[in-house]
């Protein structure tokens, strides 16, 4: 049988970064392909190329045996390729039917709401939402249902190939099941589907074959039945790790915890969580996107509303309600979005570095320029930020240097606990290594560091101890000697053996 779509030797580079280095891809009619890989492995680039969003690649692109090179997503859509993005693009105040026919194809010039609703009905049935009235406003539906509406809209174009990019990343269990059911139903009707996901259980549940991308290169497509979670993870990670991560030494467990987190109940969590944080350690919170690891840090730092909980810290029992309370207690927190609340982009770097410790450089409310300069210069040097750049606006820095400034500003308050959500998101390799090194040094100086990360490499190689989180549930704790990517991945993607596969089963 001829493949519906076949991509051979695809190369794509953005400046100095090679996103794809000769990757291949193919899909048969009526087949479900699971596309997996780490962050940065090239999945989204591949999706963009297939769907015509990215035309700057080299290599062969064959649809139904015909060589093509789309220059825009509209061309790809006309050729029968539809992609559902992670972000919803529905207009929430419009009705379901209006959203389905938003592009206006095949809609008569004059259409009433009733005729649109009638036209929308079959597409709703196709995605399993036949019970929904197409004339209701879209914002009355759940997020999961909205994702299904998005797919219904794509089906209105009658595509041959449907790409779903992390459709369940923001969804709960029952909505996720609806998406999977829909995929199965569409595949039975002869549609080809590319399913991109980080969730191993889903990939195994619905894929016929799995294509693994690693560092911009593709592995041979494997039958899903021939793989298990462990072997798939091995395929995903397969590369050797260089010395980006500082060495770890197994410490004797015990000692006095620096902070006891008791019955903390952040929003989105199903149950209360408790754990201890010890001085001198880097504690990792492992979880996938949307699992809630970041919410734990934000709750400890007083950055979000939290239902309940208690911190035992320096002999006090409290739960900060504002970041100010946490800062005054010696808790520093970097969120995962430095542009939103980590940096003052329009202010000089020196202002950023002193922003959390204005008290320290002021007497009776009057700032001392000299002590500010001394303090920020010292902290800039510690995080290898060039002190000559201090007067520049933080916004002109590269992502890596911005992240270093966002972290370095906390040195000014001499924090006992440093909470970092996604310490290296959007950070180049060189700055990454420097950040890891610095975090380790801070831990060695006696601070306790808690890192939440969705980057499996980072969470496997940086922390001394890892607590795993799965969809708002604390799954378990992994000590240094048991810390492997496979063990962590297993606990954060499929802790309850929902794939029905045995752990440890070898290929």
């Amino acid at each position, binding site marked *: 049988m001829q493949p519906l779509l076949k991509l051979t030797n695809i190369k794509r580079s953005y400046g100095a970064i090679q996103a794809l280095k000769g990757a291949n891809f193919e899909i048969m009619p009526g087949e479900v392909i699971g596309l997996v890989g780490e962050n940065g492995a090239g999945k989204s680039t591949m999706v963009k190329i297939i769907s015509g969003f990215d035309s700057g690649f080299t290599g062969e692109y064959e649809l139904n045996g015909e060589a093509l090179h789309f220059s825009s997503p509209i061309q790809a859509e006309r050729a029968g390729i539809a992609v559902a993005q992670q972000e919803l693009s529905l207009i929430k105040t419009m009705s379901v039917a209006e959203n389905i026919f938003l592009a206006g194809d095949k809609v008569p010039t004059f259409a009433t709401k009733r005729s649109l609703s009638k036209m929308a009905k079959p597409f709703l049935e196709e995605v399993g939402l036949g019970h929904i009235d197409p004339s209701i406003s879209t914002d009355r539906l759940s997020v999961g249902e909205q994702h299904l509406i998005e797919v219904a809209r794509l089906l209105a174009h009658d595509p041959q190939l449907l790409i779903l990019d992390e459709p369940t990343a923001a969804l709960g269990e029952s909505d996720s099941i609806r998406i999977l059911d829909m995929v199965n139903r569409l595949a039975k009707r002869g549609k080809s589907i590319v399913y991109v996901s980080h969730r191993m259980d889903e990939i195994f549940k619905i894929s016929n074959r799995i294509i693994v991308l690693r560092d911009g290169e593709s592995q041979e497509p494997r039958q899903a039945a021939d793989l298990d979670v462990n072997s798939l993870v091995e395929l995903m990670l397969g590369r050797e790790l260089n010395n980006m991560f500082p060495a770890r030494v197994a410490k004797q467990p015990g000692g006095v915890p620096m902070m006891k987190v008791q019955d903390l109940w952040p929003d989105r969590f199903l149950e209360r969580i408790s754990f201890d944080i010890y001085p001198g350690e880097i504690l990792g919170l492992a979880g996938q996107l949307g699992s809630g690891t970041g919410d734990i840090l934000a709750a400890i730092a007083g950055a979000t509303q939290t239902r309940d909980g208690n911190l035992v810290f320096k002999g006090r029992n409290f739960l900060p309600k*504002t970041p100010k309370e946490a800062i005054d207690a010696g808790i520093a927190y970097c*969120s995962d979005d430095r542009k939103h609340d980590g940096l003052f982009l329009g202010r000089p770097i020196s202002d950023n570095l002193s922003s959390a410790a*204005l008290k320290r450089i*002021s007497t009776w409310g009057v*700032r001392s320029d000299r002590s500010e300069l001394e303090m920020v*210069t010292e902290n800039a040097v510690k995080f290898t930020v060039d*002190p000559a750049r201090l*007067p520049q606006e933080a916004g002109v820095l590269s992502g890596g240097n911005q992240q270093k400034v966002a972290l370095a500003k906390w040195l000014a308050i001499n924090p006992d606990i440093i909470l970092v959500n996604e310490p290296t998101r959007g950070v180049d390799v060189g700055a990454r290594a420097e950040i890891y090194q610095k975090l380790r040094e801070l831990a060695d100086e006696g601070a306790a560091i808690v890192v939440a990360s969705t980057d499996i490499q980072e969470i496997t190689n940086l922390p001394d101890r890892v607590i795993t989180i799965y969809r708002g549930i604390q799954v378990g704790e992994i000590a240094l000697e048991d810390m492997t990517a496979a063990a962590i991945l297993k606990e954060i993607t499929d802790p309850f053996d929902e794939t029905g596969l045995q752990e440890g089963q070898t290929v």
Partner: protein
Amino acid sequence: MTSATTTNNPNFVQRLARDHSPLVIALVLIFMAVCIIGAATAPNFLTLFNFKTIIRDAAIVGIMAIGLTFVTLSGNFFLLSMKETAALAIIAFATCMAAGLGFPMSFLITMAIATVAGAVQGLLIGLGGNPIVVTLGAAGLFFGIGSWWSDNLVVSFRRPHGAEWLGTGSTFGLPNITIAFVIIAIVAELVLRKTSFGRQVYLIGANRAAGRATGHENFAMAIKVCIIASVCSAFVAVAFSAQVSSAHVNYFSSEFGSSGDMTIMVIATVMVGGNSIMGGYGSTLRSSLGAVFISTVDNMMVLHGFNSGPRVLAVGLMIVFSIMVFALVRRGSRAEE
């Protein structure tokens, strides 16, 4: 990536160039051009008396604009209640003076009322209220109270009174209100540059979320800056009342300045100075210069016999020009976010 630790301490000129981008330089150049044209075409322009008039006019709007600049810099946009706060304050002051309380007591009572007025607005804004809506409501409230209190009549008090020194007095040939303007401008600039409160104004204005994350809540900030703006408004009201020995709620609404509306003039002054509407960028010095600039142009037009229509038009053109230059300069200097 690591470099030798070079202590980088910019000298005054470098700092001036860094903090006051080409916009200020452009404004100063245009200001000089206006002065030269004025001197060449209007024979009375270059007299000492006229110069004093310009600064005196600038003082009234300038002091209010300095107060409002704190609000704008901290990212809380504008107070639309500037003139109504002044209206309430002027009634309060004149009533106290007429009752024979004397200047110090009347002044303190007026400032206390202004502080409460500012605190109430700041509280509502700090709790998350939209500054425009909150202060629009407050404006009606203050004006209504002032109008009710005074029965919508002129409240006058007899000379000689204890406030004459502020209204009509002068020192070394300069009107005392002008001297007050200069002192307030210097103090405000020092507060912004040298105190940790001033730095907080900039930080919260530049990025409220990051401000909160580093321990600077907008709640307290909104209250503080609204009080500053209200007190500045009330101070202008006191000075104005001291000058004319009377008060009426409409003193700041009609027949005042070239545009006839004090709030609009004050906002225009902040804008012409080139302060960022979104906050985090600008200074009170800019607002002071903006006041002098508007006042100079206005004065020249008066000398040439223009009536109020063209003068309002000129203020409008200055705002548009300032915003355009400001946008262009900022686009050039800032990296894409």
